[in-house]
């Protein structure tokens, strides 16, 4: 049996470490082929599985806790007013 082709291998043929593969995944840069490969890898690699779980949980927490806070309601009006004052005519 030949091992499945690793889509994380770079043009230079260097085999990526677990951490390198994980970062591609966490950073949202993985192709669907890479995602598929990593999902399989993760099922056999406990460190990857745990790190993935933690990193994704942090990512979700960041998104829910640090994204809120809409711009002040008067900001758009102020910007539009400034532009109309500055433009000719």
């Amino acid at each position, binding site marked *: 049996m030949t091992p499945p082709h690793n889509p994380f291998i770079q043009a230079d043929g260097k085999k990526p470490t677990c*951490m390198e593969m994980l*970062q591609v995944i966490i*950073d949202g840069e993985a192709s669907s082929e890479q995602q598929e490969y990593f999902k399989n890898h993760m099922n056999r690699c406990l460190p990857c599985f745990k790190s993935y779980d933690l990193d994704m949980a*942090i*990512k979700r927490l960041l998104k829910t*806790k640090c994204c*809120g806070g809409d*711009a002040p309601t008067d900001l758009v009006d102020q*910007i539009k007013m*400034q532009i109309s004052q500055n433009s000719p005519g």
Partner: protein
Amino acid sequence: MEETLIRNNYSEKEKNDIFNGEFLPHINSMYNFGFRLTLDRDDAKDLVQDTYLKAYRFIESFQKGTNAKAWLFRILKNSFINDYRKKTKEPSKVDYQEVETYYNSEDVNRQITPDLRVESLKDMIGDEISNALNSLDVDFRTVIILCDLEGFKYEEMAKILDIPIGTVRSRLHRARNLLKEKLSEYAKSMGYKNTEL
């Protein structure tokens, strides 16, 4: 995004359409970015206002229908560095040489914070994650914001920040580890013990 010399001759109506249809929809993301950079709501407001005025002034170098969000983020980042940071004299403390060395070292497979657990994150329902993010040095904070909050790709981040993709990658790697260190400090102070050691 490139410093191209292309100038589009937009009519007044086209300018307004681009501004209202492509620029203004990003106002909340822009404000959040401004706030996370300055850590001050008034400064964030000024920074965003300034960014939008610049965007309008240079609207002819923006190609209609392209990545307006990345274009705007780049202007805001530059305004922050050139105007705000100079004013407040906040120095950049990141040692980039150190970052690169770190990333290329043999340590990359070592788990930095084995004591941080997913379960302990579940108790961070207050400002812990926000405070942890804000405590990072501004350059590390920025890559986390761009990647995790705003979903920018390496290539877009490289253009927004004017740095090579390799640096984006290594800076993100370092930033994530620093954030985890911070979070594990919080977790510890919340009473979690490392039961694995």
